[in-house]
């Protein structure tokens, strides 16, 4: 498992803002501290709102991967 491999990836394809961020907030507790949580989202606002969410909630924004279908997967590491 690589350093940026998510322990859990939420599928938010087709969900408009703020639903991908709401899903992040709901499911953060399901990964261990130090583990990466991914959110696959095609909503254009997610590119800005995932890092903003991480800043506001004191989590770490790690970056993004691309799923096989081309949808970005935004990665955050649970810090607390």
């Amino acid at each position: 498992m690589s350093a940026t491999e998510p322990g859990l990836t939420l599928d938010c394809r087709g969900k408009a803002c703020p639903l991908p961020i709401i899903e992040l907030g709901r499911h953060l507790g399901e990964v261990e501290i130090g583990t990466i949580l991914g959110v696959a989202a095609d909503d254009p606002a997610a590119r800005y709102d995932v890092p903003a969410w991480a800043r506001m909630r004191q989590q770490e924004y790690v970056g993004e991967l691309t799923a096989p279908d081309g949808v970005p997967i935004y990665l955050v590491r649970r810090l607390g």
Partner: protein
Amino acid sequence: MTNAGSGRATDDYAYLDSASSEPLHPAAREVLLAAIDQGYADPRRLHRPARNARLLLDNARDVVAECLGVRREEVTFTSSGTQAVHLGLLGLAAARERAGRVIVHSAVEHQAVHHAVEWSARFGGRAEVVGVDAVGRVDVGRFIEAATGPEVAVLALQSANHEVGTLQPIAALRSAGLPDDVPLFVDAGASMGRLPLPEGWSALAGSAHKWGGPAGVGILLVRRGTRWVNPFPVDDRADERGVGFENVPAALAAAAALQAVLAERDEVNARQRELIDLVRARVAQIPDVDVVGDPEERLPHLVTFSVLYAAGEALVTELDRIGAGVASGSACTSSSLEPSHVLAAMGALTHGNIRLSLTRNTTRAQVEHLLDALPGVVSSLRAEVGLS
């Protein structure tokens, strides 16, 4: 219906969206009604009604010039603020085609600037976009670096940001070595009438309905001695830069409004600044809210904040229900489904966004009514999605 019987009378409604459009100033209304019967004729003709129209138009130009501290021949009335932006920016660029085609601008300009630059691409125009910091202020060093790059035709920077209120460092750019030989276009739409114009511009644009004049009147200023070429088909009007038949009554009303807001500016700005400080402090107490923009170096009447886990559309709808009209830069409230490019460039939260902008008549009671209701609105929206 839990709200039945508690509906607020229409005149209690707090319109808090002056950054979209300020209600018509009483001084403008009075002048508009008087001029509408006098200013119908073509100001270029030689007969008496035309001479009357010409007199009113010249008077409007004189008043605007005096209010803004510029020469009358530097003032052109356009049919909108957007048109003034297009003419000002692209006219400076058109006069510099031999020097280059690059337009340097900040990432947080008004859409009118972004769209003008995109349009210029069909004639070889290219954008060089300079980023902003977390409060939305352009990076001085990077702006100067871009401005001194190759093939730069024109620079564009707003006086203040229309969405978050942050003032741009135009004076600091000048003293830090912004090149004098490249023209600077300033979009002053958000600040004209509210704050003095910045210095050092070659062309500048404003919009009358943002200060309490009628809609459909833009102001284009082109500094004397600046090379400017009409980028669009020319017309044969009273003013060489003007296009289309002048709306003389509206121009005169816009001038009257500008004169009136300048006379009351110190008092209104101080009152609005204090109310916005209050909003910033109270909203920051709500958990997980991003209060955006510079708290000090800002427009007096405007504040933006974003509420985590809430949809901008739902917030606007709920606040409208309690009698407050606000704007939102969130994607769900835009026609394009794209979030605000201003908030995105700043790294601010783009969903759950509210922009609140005061009119000259906004009272403390209206602001407090909204502030009292907001925490409940936010927690009920969060409770709906299981996050509170």
